[in-house]
């Protein structure tokens, strides 16, 4: 009886020791701050313009970008500075191509914003006066989902101060633009954030998505979809397509907060859940994460 009591006590102590102890230096007493999206404002560039130098060459674009960033600052929100990231990207020699569309993708990949706001400034000079149009586009980096789009017009004025006209065009729309983004954020808070899930097989794998697995011997693709049905937040997911070797869910919603404990939730945690499930089927998966895109490779 004595030995049993000792054993029970030891077991009780072991069960209550957490896997990782909270470091006293970082212990916030349980307070949780919601992780905010990273947003970067970037200039729009045409095919013949160089995104690396477009701001240096054009003060009107710099004014437009600064006014947009000011609007975010006024809402108490800090954006990623494009020029600082550009300098860091150059210092790190990340540019592997001169193709402008590739360079833009490389900067966005390097800076890794969740959302980028692209500002296009269009100057019209006529004999009846000058005007500036500004087009603002806000998109999620990984999914391409559009969050807000607005066109601002300074109106036509007899002035050579194009910078002032840029400012006017931005001021006309930026608050409404941010309000639209905020409505989309509310939708994300309520219905989850979008992630992309790309599942494929390595070259040497003896399995494919038609392989029958699990207790009921169902095709792997169906098992995975059934799992997604149960685990996507509010059952909200979209299957782009399935072949024998690739399965892509191009929009899966995951919650911003872990529904069991209120802590911040992220794509890596969801990737781990999926990895564990595939492992439980007797397969050998690896997982990779790039922004909000989860790559699962089954070996």
């Amino acid at each position: 009886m004595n030995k049993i009591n000792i054993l029970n006590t030891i077991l009780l102590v072991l069960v209550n020791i957490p896997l990782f102890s909270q470091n006293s230096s970082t212990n916030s007493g349980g307070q949780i701050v919601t992780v905010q999206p990273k947003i970067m404002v970037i200039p729009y560039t045409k095919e013949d313009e160089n995104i690396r130098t477009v701001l240096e060459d054009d003060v009107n674009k710099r004014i437009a970008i600064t006014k947009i960033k000011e609007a975010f600052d006024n809402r108490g929100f800090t954006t990623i500075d494009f020029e600082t990231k550009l300098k860091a990207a150059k210092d790190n020699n990340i540019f592997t191509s001169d193709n402008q569309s590739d360079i833009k993708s490389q900067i966005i990949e390097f800076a890794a914003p969740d959302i980028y706001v692209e500002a296009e400034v269009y100057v019209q000079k006529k004999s009846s006066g000058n005007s500036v149009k500004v087009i603002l586009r806000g998109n999620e980096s990984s999914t391409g989902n559009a969050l807000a789009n607005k066109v601002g017009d300074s109106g036509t004025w007899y002035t050579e101060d194009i910078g002032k006209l840029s400012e006017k065009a931005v001021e006309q729309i930026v608050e409404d633009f941010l309000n639209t983004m905020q409505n989309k954020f509310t939708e994300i808070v309520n219905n989850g954030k979008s992630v992309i899930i790309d599942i494929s097989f390595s070259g040497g794998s003896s399995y494919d998505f038609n392989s029958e697995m699990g207790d009921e011997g169902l095709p792997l693709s169906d098992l995975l979809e059934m799992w997604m049905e149960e685990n996507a937040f509010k059952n909200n997911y979209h299957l782009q397509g399935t072949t024998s070797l690739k399965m892509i869910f191009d929009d899966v919603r995951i919650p911003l907060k872990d529904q069991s404990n209120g802590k911040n939730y992220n794509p890596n945690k969801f990737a781990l859940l999926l990895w564990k499930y595939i492992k439980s089927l007797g397969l050998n998966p690896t997982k990779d994460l790039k922004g909000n895109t989860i790559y699962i490779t089954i070996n």
Partner: protein
Amino acid sequence: MRQLNIFILILFTGLIACKTKNISYPTAEVVLLSENKDGTITLKSAGYGKDFQDAVTDAQMNAFDILLFRGIPGSNRFKNPIIMDENMVKNQHKEYFDTFYSKAYFNTFMVNSVVSSNEIHLEKGKKVFVDVTINTNSLLRDLEQNNIIRKFGY
């Protein structure tokens, strides 16, 4: 006979007590006069009341009501409502809105209030137009601090 009369009287009183309550909603007679760079917004608002002072207070409260729950057509920043689900939010934050309206907490966000029309005599009461200037920056900060609305972001 006497008992029958008493019964009819009680029945009649009961029927009157059961009549449908009139529900009144604030008027949407609020128009944008100006939207200023310093974060203030000036609205012309109609107010109704049994006397002049009641009508002025009603106009001021209407301006806030429309700004918060309906949106201001023509405004760059506030053409959509600040608070989308009026009933749910008012129920969730009863104490805040009681203080806001009944204890005139809205006055703390009202930079200026000018009666801009003559007193209009109605069959029952008065109507008046008031130009109300609201400090929207401090109003929004207060709503965020009291968790009525979310700060920009998630």
